[in-house]
C-alpha cells in the first residue's frame, strides 16, 4: 500500500486486513485514489502554482494512470500508411523444393532451449575431455566434478529436441565409443552414474539426482566430430 499522507486523504485505515472479499475492492479503490491524488499533488508542486491541487492536476494524473494501463489500437491513418508501405512490395517468389517452409531459425521455436549448468564443486582436474564437434546448438556442458566420494551431479534441464553437444573442459562422454574420459578417478567411480551401453549408438542414460534416468539422444554429427 502506498504511504499516502494519512492526515490529508481520507482512508479506510481500519480495514488494513481484508476481512471479507468486498474489502479487497475497497482497498483497491483506495489505492487507486491515493495514487491519483499523490500524482496530482506532485504535478501541482512541480508547476509551482498554489500548493492546492487543482482540477487539471487531477485530470492529468488520471490520464497518466490510463496511459500506463491501457493502449488503444493505432489510429486509422497510421494503419493506412503502414499498409501502403507494406503492400507496395510485390509478393516474393516461392523457392522450389523446400520441404517444410519455415522462417529463419531465430524466428522459430525449434532451437534447443536448455543448457547444462555447472555445479559449484571444486574441480580436481581437467580431463582429457572429449569434446564433440562444434556446438551447433547451445552447448551442453556437463561438469562432472568429482571428489572421490561425492556424487557426480548432472543437472539436466528438460527438453524437447535432440541436440546435446558438449562443451568445454570438464567433460562429458562421447557416446559412440563406450569410452568415458572423466576425471582422474578410477573408472569405477563413474560407472554407477553413467551407463554407456556399447551397442546403442548415441544413447546415454544419465542418472539424475532425483533418480530418474533420462535418455539423451546424441545426433549423428557427433560421430563425425570424433
Amino acid at each position: 500500500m502506498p504511504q499516502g499522507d494519512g492526515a490529508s486523504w481520507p482512508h479506510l485505515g481500519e480495514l488494513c486486513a481484508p476481512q471479507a472479499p468486498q474489502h479487497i475492492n475497497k482497498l483497491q479503490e483506495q489505492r487507486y485514489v491515493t495514487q491519483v491524488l499523490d500524482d496530482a499533488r506532485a504535478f501541482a508542486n512541480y508547476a509551482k502554482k498554489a500548493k492546492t491541487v487543482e482540477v487539471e492536476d487531477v485530470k492529468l494524473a488520471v490520464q497518466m494512470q490510463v496511459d500506463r494501463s491501457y493502449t488503444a489500437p493505432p489510429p486509422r491513418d497510421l494503419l493506412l500508411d503502414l499498409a501502403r508501405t507494406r503492400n507496395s512490395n510485390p509478393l516474393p517468389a516461392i523457392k522450389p523444393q523446400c520441404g517444410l517452409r519455415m522462417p529463419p531459425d531465430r524466428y522459430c521455436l525449434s532451437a534447443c532451449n536448455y543448457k547444462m549448468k555447472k555445479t559449484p564443486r571444486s574441480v580436481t582436474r581437467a580431463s582429457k575431455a572429449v569434446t564433440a564437434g562444434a556446438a551447433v546448438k547451445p552447448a551442453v556442458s556437463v561438469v562432472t566434478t568429482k571428489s572421490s566420494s561425492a556424487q557426480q551431479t548432472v543437472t539436466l534441464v528438460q527438453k524437447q529436441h535432440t541436440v546435446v553437444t558438449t562443451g568445454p573442459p570438464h567433460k562429458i562422454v562421447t557416446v559412440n565409443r563406450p569410452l568415458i574420459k572423466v576425471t582422474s578417478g578410477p573408472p569405477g567411480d563413474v560407472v554407477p552414474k553413467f551407463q554407456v551401453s556399447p551397442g546403442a549408438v548415441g544413447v546415454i542414460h544419465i542418472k539424475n539426482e532425483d533418480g530418474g534416468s533420462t535418455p539423451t539422444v546424441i545426433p549423428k554429427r557427433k560421430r563425425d566430430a570424433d
Partner: protein
Amino acid sequence: MDDSDSPTYASLAPANPTMVNDLASVDLPSLSNIPDVNSNGHLPSAVQSPLSGQDVSSPQTPASLDMKSDGYSDMDKSTMIAVIQFLKRGNLKSTEEILRKECGFFEPVDVTDTSGALGEEGEVLAAYKSDGNPAEYQDAFKALSAFVEKSLDAYKYEVAAVLYPVLIHMYLELIYNGHRGEAVELLQNCSSSIEAHHADDLRSISLVTSRAQMAGQPLLNTLLSAQYTCRMSRDSLAHLKRFLADRSAGPVPRIIQDRLNIDLVDGQPRTKAQVLAVQGAITGEAPRSANKTKIFYGLLKEPELQTVINEEEEAEDDLDKPKKKKSKKDALQKNKKNDPNAPPANRIPLPELRDQDKQERARIYRDSMKRVTLSRDALPSICFYSFVNASNTVCSVDISDDSSILAFGSAESILSVHSITPAKLKAMKPAEQLSDIDKDSEDVLVRMLDDRSGETQRNLMGHSGPVTAVSVSPDKALLASSGQDGTVRIWSLQTWTCVVVLRGHIYPVWSVRFSPHGYYLVTGGHDRTARLWTTDQHLPLRIFAGHYSDVDVVEFHPNSNYVASGSSDRSVRLWDCSNGACVRIFTGHKGTVSAVNFSPCGRYLASGSCDARILVWDLGGHGNALAALSSHSDTIHTLAFSREGTILASGSMDCTVKIWDFAKVTEEGRDEDVNATTSPLEDKSLLLSTFPTKQTPVLSLHFTRRNVLLASGPFNG
C-alpha cells in the same frame, strides 16, 4: 515581471499594455484598432479558441460595465473576457489589473480548459465548433423529417437516409459547444424517426455528454475521420437540394455539406426495400468508386493429372456424375479452356505441387467420383460432433479438408487435435531413427512417423489466452491458431510442437485461415487490420487496413487471390492479395459480420452476421446483395457450401443447422445484372430444411469430399 520564462514580456513596462502578442494592434484605451467583430460577437482570428468555451448565446449585459464613452461600449463582453483569459494564461497579472481598471470590468473570469488541451483530436473536434443557436437545432431537424415524410414515395426512402447522420452530427455539435440540455432533448424527441438498426450506435453516442468525453471515443473517431456516405439518384438529390436551399441559414445544410458524402447513382430512385438492404454499416453505404475494380473470381486451372485420371476413368458417363468430374475431364482434355474470369496462374506466387500433393489430388478426384450429388431433393446427411462438458470453453473448431482431423481451441488456451477416422495421430520418430530410414522410398512420409506413438487425441499448449480460431493446412502438416493474447502460432502436426509464433497483431486476433493451396495464412484482429502471412516469413506480407472496427472473420477465395473479411463495422470487404487493395465493400448487414465463406465456383460470397441474416454477394457484380436469407434467430457462426455449390448450410447460436437451396439463388441471379436498383432475393422457399439440436450452438460446419455434412458445437447442458 514575474514571468522569467517568457522573455517577450521582459521589457514590458507595467503601464504599457499594448505589447501583448497577438493583440499588438489593440490599443485598449482608444479601441480604435479593434478588428471587425462579426455579428455574433467573435473576433475572427487569434482569439477564436478561447471563446469556444463560452456560452455564446448568453445575452450581453453591458449594464454592469462602466462605459467609457470613447469606445468600450463597442466592445463585447465576450471579447473582454477573451482578452482577460489570454492575459491570465500568460500570467500577466498587472496588465490584467490595469485593463480591468480602465474598462471597469470587474467580473471574475476563469480560464477554462479549451480545445488546445485535447491535442490533435481537439483540432479535429474543433470542427464541431459552431455559432448556431441551440434552440433551432431541434426545429431544424423536425422540419427535415417532416419534409422527408411528405416527399414523394419515389424519393422518400433515399432522402430519409440522411436523417440519421444529420441527427448524430447535430447532437455532437451541441455537446461540443456545451449545450447539453438541448442535445439530450434533441435525441429524446427525434430518435423516433430513425430506423431501428441504428439504435445501438445512437445509444453509445448518447453516452457522450460533454466535450471532454468526446476525445478518444472510438465511434466518434470513426464518424469524424470518415464521411457518412449516402447514395442518391439525381432526382432525389435535386429534391433534397430544393429543400435545403430554403433553409440555408440553419445547421442542416451546413452539416450535410461538411459531414455527408452524397454519392450519385444513375438511374431510378430506389425503393424502400432496396435502400434498407444496403444500410447498416457504420459509415453508411459504399461509394460507387469503391466497387468498380474487376475481380478475377474464376478458379485456377487444374494441374495436369492425366496419368492419374486415366487409371481411374470409368467408362460410363451418365448424367449423375458430379459436375466436378466433367469439368475436370473437360479441362484436362481441352486443356486450353480459359475462363475469362480466372486469374492468371502467376498472379500471386503459389507453391508448386509436390508428389504428395499430386497424390492428394488423385485422392480428391477419386472421392469426387463417389460423391453424393446434393440438390433440393437430395439433402445432405449430417454428422454432429458435440463437445460435452465444454460449454464455456470450446471457442473454435476446424476440420481438415479430407475430414480426418478435428482441431478445436478452448478458452483455457489449449488446442486439442482429434482424429475422427480410425487412423491415429502419429508423431515423428526421434532423430537417430530418422537417419535410418531410406529417404528415397515411396512411403517415406509414412515411415518417418512412429507407429507406436499413435494416439487419438493430442493437446497442444502454448497460447496465453483463449484460442479464438484454428485452421488446419490443406496438407495436414501444419496447424495455425490465433489467440486473444495477440499471437498467431503455427504448430507442426508431425512433431506436435509449436514451430513459429507470429507477433504482428498486438491486440487479440479473432480469426486465422490457411489458403486452399497452403503456404499463405490470413489473420484478422482487434487492431482493425487483416494480415497476409506465409509460413516462411515472420512478418506479414500484406496489411489489409480499411475497416473501421475489429476484423472478426477472414476467408480465402478458392483461387487464393482474394481475401474476404467481415468486421464489427458491419461491412464485408474483399481484398486483393497481390497489392493489398480493397476491391469491394459490401454493406447491408445490420450487425457484426460473424461468418464469411466463398462458394466452390468462386463467384459468390455468403456472409452471416449477428443480426441472424445471411447475405449472398455476386462477385461479378458491383457490391449489391444477390439474396438475403433470413430464418435464423441468433448470430450465425458458420457457413458451408456443398462441394459442387448447390447447397448452403448455416449454423447458428440458436442451436440449429439450416440448409438452403443455393442452386436456386444462382440460377435466378445469373440472368440479370445485379446493380443498385435490384433488391436482394428474399424467398421463403430457399430454406430447404432446419435441423434443431438440443441446446448445442453450432460452431462449425464442414462438407466432406463426399458431401456428408459434419457439424460441431459445445453442448450447453
